[in-house]
Structures are given as C-alpha cells and as structure tokens.
C-alpha cells in the first residue's frame, strides 16, 4: 500500500519557484529551507523572515454558550479574554495528556477562533465535536484560510510600509482585521520564534498575492522566506514546545513546565483531576532545557540523558543553536534530576558529552 500523498499549501508553487527543499511534515509538503537553516535563523533574529503556516488549522466556535463550553474543553481561562485578545492553551484528554496546544482568540462577543497544529486538525475537531454542547457551533475553516508568520525586529517597519505609518499593529496576543491591497486579512501579534512578529491569516485565493507583496515590500528590510528548519531552531532556543516531540498524549502540561497556561481554579475542564493529582504528588518526570558544556556533536531527539552515569531520561528536541553556537535541547528527566544547574551527560553514539540543565528560555535577546 502506498502512503497517501502529502497535501500542498496554497503557497506550494511559490516555495518551489524559490528553490525550497520540500519535506513531508504533519501530512503536508512544506519548505524546510530555501537557502540555509542558519541563514534563515539569523534573518529572523536580525531582520524579518516569513514562514508559510497555511498548513495550520482554523476552527470557529460561536454561539451563546461558546465561551462556557470552551472553558470546559481548554486549560486556560477563556473568561479572561476581551474581544480581540488571544491566549495560548491546551486541549487535554481525560488523563491530562496533551491532544494539542493551540491559540484561542476571542474574535467577537460570542465568537472564537482556534488555531491548531496541522497534524492534529482531524483529531482536535473530532474531540471537540464529540463534546460539543447545545448553544455552540463548531466549524472547521482550515481549508478556507492560508497563513504566514512574519517574524523579526523589522516587522513593525514592514507593516508601516504596508498599512501606513499611522496604523498600529495589534498589541501582543491580540488580533485585528485589516485590508491590505484589497485583501481582507486578520493579523495576530503572536509567533513561535521569540522575536516580535505577527501571524497573518487570509483567504486561500489571496495567498500568493499576499506572500509576494510581503517579499517585494520587505526586500529593503532584508525580509526573506524561511522554512521549518529555522522555525524549529528558533522555537527551541525559546523552549517553546513542539507537539509530538515535547508534548504528547502521555505528557501533561504540569510535567512540561507549562502550568502557567492551566487555570486549576476553574471548576471543570477535561483532564483537571489528573493535573491536580500531578500538582499534589509532584511530577514523576519534568521537561527540562539543557545546554552542552562544550563543542561536540549536536544533541538530537531520543538520545539518552544521564546523571552521574545513570539514565534519567531522553531528549525530546535537540539541535545546534545558531544564536548560541552550541548544542541545546529539551528532554524529560526524572524529577530528582530536573533542577536548574544539574549536570547531565548526553550519550551520542556510545560516547558521553557533558551538559547542564538551564533555565528556560535558553536564548535571551540582547537589548
């Protein structure tokens, strides 16, 4: 039996035209890089880069009961959102395990936008639909929207050029609708890189036009297209988790150190009991961030993490950090070995390389 063909985003032909190396990711054929991961990484840290995020899913939840129902499905407190505001949150199973991590925006009094991971669109939708209550409507609009993330310190300059000098971008974690060159777009001040940036959603039919407009107008600011390779090194320097690597149905947000996005004061949401249990008893394993002590092979997923020669866990994400020029990663280790400053060893092809548990994030912007 042959594998089902990967889906293509509305920007597929643009990626090919730009010479991108295309790879399968979450059921989609996506650009991993155009020139080089390191070059694209530095473009985002120093200028501005644009990523195709059209593979990500969009659901609309609306109705008089929408807010209260979503509050029983998601970990963060939906009631705290003003219209136009978004929050990072988790969709959990009853064991507290992560089905998905997503951003929820309140886009109207009783209307919400959920932006979910590409590989989880079907699973999230089925789970939500199965638990849907009266007074709520749930629509999967993923096929109607394309999207890009535009990230880097020059992003405000770029949008002043596109929208006019007097127009202000939304505040951090907020979303506003604009019209750019006759294209209706939603701009959210969010991202996955640690830099100032936006995520922009538009009609599929406008995708190519919007993409090329940004590249053309951004050229003088050093704007370049960037692939999933740089997206991964950028997010890992910030210790932002990747679902499927750092998060899974077997791990809960408390173990992952992401309790900030869980409101245990809420009376009821899927997974709450398990999270209270973890909180009370302490997590058995914790997601830690580490830096290699010296030069050596880059740490990679599934390499063993040791403490004084005894295996205490394994790497969930690892790479050579282009900003720090040293190996970095995250991994789950037993709670007793999870304190900041703990010396660890990484086993790479039978050899041992020293590392140290560091505070998150691993990269801090020099101001």
């Amino acid at each position, binding site marked *: 039996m042959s594998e089902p063909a990967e889906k293509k985003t509305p920007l597929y032909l643009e990626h090919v035209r730009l010479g991108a190396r295309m790879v399968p990711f979450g059921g989609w054929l996506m650009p*991993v890089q155009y020139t080089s991961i390191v070059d694209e990484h530095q473009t985002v840290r120093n200028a501005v880069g644009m990523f195709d995020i059209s593979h990500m899913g969009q659901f609309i939840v609306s109705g008089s009961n929408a807010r209260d129902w979503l509050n029983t499905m998601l970990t963060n407190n939906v009631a705290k959102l003003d219209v136009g505001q978004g929050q990072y949150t988790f969709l959990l199973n009853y064991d507290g395990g992560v089905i998905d991590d997503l951003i929820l925006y309140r886009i109207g009094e009783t209307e919400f936008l959920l932006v979910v991971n590409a590989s989880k669109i079907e699973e999230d939708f089925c789970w939500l639909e199965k638990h849907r209550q009266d007074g709520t409507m749930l629509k999967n609009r993923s096929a109607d929207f394309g999207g890009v993330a535009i990230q880097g310190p020059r992003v405000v300059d770029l949008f002043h050029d596109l929208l006019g000098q007097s127009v202000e971008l939304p505040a951090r974690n907020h979303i506003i609708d604009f019209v750019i060159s006759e294209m209706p777009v939603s701009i959210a001040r969010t991202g996955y890189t640690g830099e100032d940036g936006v995520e922009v959603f538009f009609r599929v039919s406008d995708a190519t036009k919007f993409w090329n407009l940004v590249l053309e107008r951004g050229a003088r600011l050093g704007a370049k297209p960037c692939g999933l390779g740089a997206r991964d*090194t950028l997010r890992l320097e910030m210790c932002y988790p990747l679902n499927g690597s750092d998060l899974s149905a077997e791990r809960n947000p408390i173990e992952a150190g992401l309790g900030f996005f869980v409101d245990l004061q809420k009376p009821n949401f899927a997974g709450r009991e398990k999270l209270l249990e973890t909180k009370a008893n302490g997590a058995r394993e914790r997601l830690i961030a580490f830096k290699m002590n010296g030069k050596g*092979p*880059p740490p*990679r997923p599934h390499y063993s993490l040791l403490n004084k020669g005894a295996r205490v866990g394994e790497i969930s994400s690892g*790479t*050579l950090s282009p900003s720090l020029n040293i190996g970095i990663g995250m991994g789950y280790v037993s709670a007793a070995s999870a304190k900041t400053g703990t010396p660890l060893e990484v086993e790479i*092809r039978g050899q041992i390389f020293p590392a140290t548990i560091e505070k998150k994030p691993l990269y801090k912007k020099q101001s």
Partner: protein
Amino acid sequence: MNVPDNLLYTKSHEWIRREGDHIRVGITDHAQAELTDVVFVELPKVGTNVEAKAPVAVVESVKAASDIYAPVKGTVVEANNALTNNPALINSDPFGEGWIFALKIDNADDLKNLQSAAAYKDQIEA
C-alpha cells in the same frame, strides 16, 4: 553542481582522489548542498582498519547526522583535524580543504568498483 573529472565517486556521495597507494576521501558538492550547514564532523582515528562500505565518519548538519563510508578496504592514515574547529570547510571547499580522511588501501583493484565522474553525474541528475 561541480563534479571534477579527475576523481572517483561512490553511490553514497563520497569522492576519492588517488595518491599512490593512499586515497583521500570527502563528500561531493552535491552531498554538501543536500546536507547544508555542516556543524560537526566526527573523524576516524588514525590507524583504524576499515572494510569497504563501513561507516568511518559522521557529518552532522543542523537537521541530521549522516554516516560517511569507506569507499574500499584499508587503514586510516590521516584525518582532517581542521574540520574539528571549522566543519563548514565541507560546505565552502568540499573537494579541497573539506577533505575528511585518507586511507592506505589494501588492494588497488578495489578502486575498480567505484564510479567515474560521468557515471556519478548521471546518478545525481537522474
């Protein structure tokens, strides 16, 4: 892609330069372009005996680790220590400063199993 005519090639993208009863080995321009951004090279120890097609070195990019294979049976006589501090030489000068190791070969006839520049060109253009 640059494929010098005076070298031999493996199917696994190593190039081979004959130097008497020694050979010098690296990865091709095509291979370095595919890997991009080489960030680490694990070199073989001088004196190691290796079989043909055995992994002898590792070249790592940001994304992946790739084994580099011995083209023929032999003994490692040199390793390019310059790559330890500057692994990107593999990207900037794959056929020159970016060489990886040298072997003393057991049997010069083994080189007949390697392919010519023309055959390698066909392979990467296929």
